[in-house]
């Protein structure tokens, strides 16, 4: 299984991971259009936690026993049994925010415009998640970990 790992000592808190995450999860491929033309600013799936000189990006941990999956009222959040990646089926999500209450990392966010909960999906379809690919200091790596 591949996961996004953080090399905290070299995270400088530039927030580029967030910006590229926002771009990846918007309708446009062009950064300027993604931020300026969409009805609301795209929402990043991860966020930088900072208390200088400490910085690190926090994203979904893809927990082994995910509270969000257990908490979801409609079965919208599921864990892929092969890859272990947890994703949300937006068709089924009713925006009850129970997953947000359940997540111990506080990393699931509200899309208030569409009334859906959103979380990191490790950029399904991309070889490397965009936050990793665009980290200028290699503080994020996409690494195979032991099961």
């Amino acid at each position: 299984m591949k996961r996004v790992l953080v090399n905290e000592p070299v995270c400088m808190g530039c927030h580029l991971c967030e910006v590229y995450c926002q771009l990846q999860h918007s309708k446009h491929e062009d950064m300027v259009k993604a931020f300026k033309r969409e009805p609301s600013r795209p929402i990043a799936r991860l966020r930088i936690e900072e208390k200088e000189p400490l910085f690190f990006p926090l994203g979904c941990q893809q927990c082994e026993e995910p509270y969000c999956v257990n908490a979801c009222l409609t079965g919208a959040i599921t864990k892929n049994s092969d890859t272990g990646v947890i994703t949300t089926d937006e068709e089924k999500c009713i925006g009850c925010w129970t997953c947000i209450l359940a997540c111990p990392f506080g990393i699931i966010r509200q899309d208030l415009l569409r009334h859906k909960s959103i979380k990191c999906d490790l950029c399904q379809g991309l070889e490397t998640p965009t936050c990793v690919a665009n980290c200028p200091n290699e503080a994020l790596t996409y690494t195979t970990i032991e099961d």
Partner: protein
Amino acid sequence: MKTYVPPKFMIIRDPARCIQCQICVNQCSFDANYYDIEDSEVRNRDENCVGCHRCMTFCPTRAITITKNPLEYRENYNWRSEDIEDIWKQAESGGVLLTGMGNDKGYPIYWDHLLLNASQVTNPSIDPLREPMELVTYLGKKPDRVRIDRDSFDLETELAPQVKLNLPVMFSAMSYGAVSLNVHKSLAQAATEMGILWNTGEGGLHHSLYKYGNNTIVQVASGRFGVHAQYLNVARVVEIKIGQGAKPGIGGHLPAEKVTAEVALTRMIPRGTDALSPAPQHDIYSIEDLAQLVYALKEATNYTKPISVKIAAVHNSAAIASGMVRAGADIIVLDGLRGATGAAPKVIRDNVGIPIELALASVDTRLRQEGIRNQASLVISGGIRNSGDVIKAIALGADAVNIGTAALIALGCHVCQQCHTGKCAWGICTSNLSLTKRINPEIGARRLSNLLRGWSLEIKDMLGGLGINALESLRGNRLHLRGVGLTDTEAEILGVRMAGS
């Protein structure tokens, strides 16, 4: 009285491209970009901009351009804006103006007046892709003559300690405290990977870097920071620092705010105190005194390591170098006019010392005349920009060169000359723990190794063109150089003939 020092640069932000992501704000360590919460907009403080291009490089939409402030003073060849503003600053502060990096004035760069030869028709050039080329260099005292056992062909002459370099380039002395630990790690890792040496500078060696000792030169400077038996013995070479090209004749001053816990531990001084290096080494007032320290260090390291002595290139370098060799130095290092620093008085940086090319040529010539050139290796530093400069230095007589600024540029430095502020936005010349993270040692080491690999290939190409397959054959061979735009005296000192002759 009202003084207004106009901004040097302007930050131009294209509103059509700016997405208000504030990365420019969090990357600028000089507060030149800020976010106005009231107006929800990123704005500039141009007066703080130092032209380091950090914001421009990190802007994900390329919305930022940094440009020179077009504000002009009335044209005056004598009173340029820099002269006028320096006077204003001093009229306000009454202090010494500080700066970083090397001399940025228009003194001649002699490398640009020297050209290399190449083989045509009468002698074949060598293709380095098809034939082996040798860049290996050994530093250390060489014997006057070599005796070999006639039967076994074993070497009978006892050699002084030698240090092998895979290419004739090393990293200049940059102290921990001036640069960050991550910079030291990058240099140490790259030096180890490439088979060269890096240099601790005068701030001691952090304990986590002892494992790179075999590729480390440790310095013993006038402040004696971090000098102890293990420090000397873990190293490959011990260097006595007498002077530095950026500030010949004066000492060093690491301000208290840069002396963090780790810097204090490594330097063996109290945390948060100024680290002052005296101008002279107070136990060295003569060549005889120097010999005492050289031999004290040889004793301390049981004659297993070459002892290097570094001086700034000054008017009498040739005579001083002769004395240094006679004092027992195995390696002498000359640091020229354009050698850089983490902090120096501007007036010293810009006005003291001599160009390294002239110092190198005169020292090499003098040591040859005296028949002692073999007794010490000659290393030069100060403004080496590319492999062309390296190979010209070798042809002028250097055994190897040190690169400092070039190495830092490989790590991201944009030569904005703000080293003395401790706010380096590229995380190089600072001990601010939020900023030092900006250098990832893994990336740093990779980039430095890449630079050296590129230079090696280029040096081999140039050697091949000269029809030479070993750097040793070029060393001090000034017939491979020709001068352009030199006066007769300059050509004579450099020991080169003019192009066309």
